[in-house]
């Protein structure tokens, strides 16, 4: 059963400069025990999206639905939402220092979290559970460290404490918002390893928000790439990395320095993301897109549509489905389409043969049929 089903979510904010359309018609599903990676640059709406689900965007104008265990999170009254938050859906934020109270001991903060949701737990029991949680997230000497204050913890340990707190009530879903961005590489590896292990032990679903494609490649099952408040592409992980369809996804992958391109020139995406107050007409990516044609500039803003047979790989781009991928032929097809303004060969009914089944390793066992939520 689908754990979280978000449909056509729109979030906008009234500001002095105009309406900021932070999220525009985003739909996605999260299955139990799976990880959805949401990738996007600053201002793409990835954080607003998840915070809205938890009622953490006061003053926002919200449309759409977010069904979680049969309830629409967007319509729950505050007191009921409070019971969901922390107990069933918990959050790990980017900066653990600002998310922990500096004047309370770590153990107290975890106990408080437990007791806030269940008054029947005694203080003693809660304290014992705090120690156990710290042990599970790999804090050495947890029985003495529970009495430490946040400043006595290193950055990595604070993030572990945040994870302990997020796990305290064994939630069904954890939303991790850039949980490793503030950490060093070796500590980031520790935290990602911890999240993966906890997820496998407890079967928790995870939404991983990040700007780092490397993190997504490591731990996500499915990936949603966001641009200017909208999902540009959504697919099982391997499809996004090896058969990207949306030129924005392609651009992101190409602009990362990698061993193969060492010393050579990088291929950046020209320009910068649009203002969310003053969005361009047509496809919001077209001013930066090297394959844009007339339809992209003036037509409708493209929405996600399936581009493979199984319907698990979706892209919001007018380029032909067969142009997905990193191969030279795909590149040729994209260029020809852009030059002509439509698909060059009249083989519209041609089956899309390039979709590879996810195989091998820890990649995506049984990835299909999880991503059918389409945008209305």
């Amino acid at each position: 059963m689908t754990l979280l089903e978000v449909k056509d979510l729109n979030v906008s904010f009234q500001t002095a400069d105009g309406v900021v359309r932070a999220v525009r018609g985003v739909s996605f599903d999260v299955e139990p025990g799976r990880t959805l990676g949401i990738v996007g640059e600053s201002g793409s709406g990835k954080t607003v999206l998840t915070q809205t689900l938890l009622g953490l965007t006061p003053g926002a104008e919200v449309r759409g639905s977010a069904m979680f265990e049969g309830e629409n999170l967007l319509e729950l009254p505050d007191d009921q939402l409070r019971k969901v938050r922390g107990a069933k859906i918990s959050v790990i934020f980017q900066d653990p220092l600002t998310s922990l109270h500096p004047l309370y001991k770590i153990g107290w903060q975890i106990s408080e979290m437990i007791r806030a949701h269940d008054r029947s737990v005694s203080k003693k029991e809660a304290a014992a559970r705090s120690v156990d949680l710290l042990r599970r997230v790999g804090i050495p000497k947890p029985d003495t460290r529970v009495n430490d204050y946040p400043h006595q913890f290193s950055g990595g340990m604070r993030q572990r404490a945040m994870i302990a707190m997020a796990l305290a009530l064994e939630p069904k879903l954890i939303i991790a918002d850039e949980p490793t961005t503030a950490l060093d590489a070796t500590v980031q590896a520790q935290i990602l390893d911890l999240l993966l292990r906890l997820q496998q032990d407890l079967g928790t679903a995870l939404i991983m928000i990040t700007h780092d494609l490397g993190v997504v490649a490591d731990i996500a099952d499915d990936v949603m790439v966001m641009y200017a408040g909208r999902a540009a592409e959504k697919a099982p992980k391997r499809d996004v990395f090896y058969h990207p369809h949306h030129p924005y996804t392609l651009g992101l992958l190409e602009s990362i320095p990698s061993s193969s391109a060492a010393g050579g020139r990088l291929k950046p995406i020209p320009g910068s993301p649009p203002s969310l107050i003053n969005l361009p007409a047509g496809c919001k990516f077209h001013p930066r897109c090297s394959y844009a044609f007339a339809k992209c500039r003036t037509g409708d803003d493209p929405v996600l549509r399936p581009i493979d047979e199984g319907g698990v790989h979706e892209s919001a781009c007018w380029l032909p489905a067969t142009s997905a991928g990193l191969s030279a032929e795909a590149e040729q097809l994209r260029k020809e389409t852009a030059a002509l303004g439509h698909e060059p060969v009249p083989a519209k009914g041609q089956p899309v043969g390039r979709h590879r089944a996810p195989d091998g390793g820890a990649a995506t066992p049984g990835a299909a049929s999880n991503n059918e939520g389409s945008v209305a």
Partner: protein
Amino acid sequence: MATANGTDDNVLVRVENVVKHFPVKAGGFFRHTVGQVHAVDDVSLVIERGKTLGLVGETGSGKSTLARCVAGLIPVTAGKVFLNGTNISELSRGAMRPLRREVQMIFQDPYSSLNPRRRVGAIIGDPFAIHKTATGAERKRMVQELMERVGLNPEHFNRFPAEFSGGQRQRIGVARALALRPKLIICDEPVSALDVSIQAQVLNLLADLQTEYGLSYLFIAHDLEVVRHVSDKVAVMYLGRIGEAAPADSLYRQPRHPYTVALLSAAPAADPDAAAARQRVILAGDVPSPIDPPAGCRFHPRCPKAQEICGRVEPPLVTHDDLGPAAGPPAGWGPADPAGAGVPGIPGGETHVTACHFPVVPGETLASARTPAIAAEREPA
């Protein structure tokens, strides 16, 4: 290769045994020093003309402190810094002043490194004003040339930093650094705050400017792929010391120091299959405090290969002969290691040097400190 006073045609900057300690103070009225932060401890390196030396390390490894010492922004506790053959660590402020234009910096945060209340033209024009090289209309013309060169619209001369995006602000920082045609630009995490698509724009710009003006870069970053992309030579720092240094290709292809191996394996690659196939080395614990660094090899408490000797004896930075033909020791750099493990080399040079008693051999797998008390295994088959 090098002469004793540090001059060499190819070498722009030579750092010799630089130490930088910061005092730790305690007490209110009777304020006294209770310890030293060993930010940089006995580091030597060279930066060649027109080349990029990448400096990698985690928070607190001393890479930014070292950069400040190289720029002459803070006095060194001990050691020497030669710029173009001149020992700048002994110069007075006045004597240092004309040399300052040779070294410029680009900072990490394009938001806090630009004064929000000054116009972009004034910010970029400051170096000309300070060094009295151009005034009035000529200064404006030079600033606009610089703006054009770094990809900014010269008509935006009168705008404030707030009117620019993060990537554009970083270009302003680059223009300011470039103004006096320096020989060396120290880039301290210049792209860390930028989104990937913008990051690539700035990296390309830096590469173009290097070719055009023959600049040398000291490039500090924590992103290993970025460092690999831009660097000719790479040095890895850990707790104030250089653990390993080599030409970039050699370091990434065959890292020898266990810390370098762990660091490289920890860096997430944007490739799911590579990520699944990779043997990730997870280190135990955190970086120890630089106030009281471990004895012997500073990495030994976290090192999966540590032996008894590692806690006692500091390993020298030497070549290890199973690496193939090692370039000979540079003249004037002391005797070869008496233990016969290898010959000392200077980071930034052509040799691959490692400060480790038990360097990782090709094909070796390091033990990983996995999260305890969680039973499930997730090693790819």
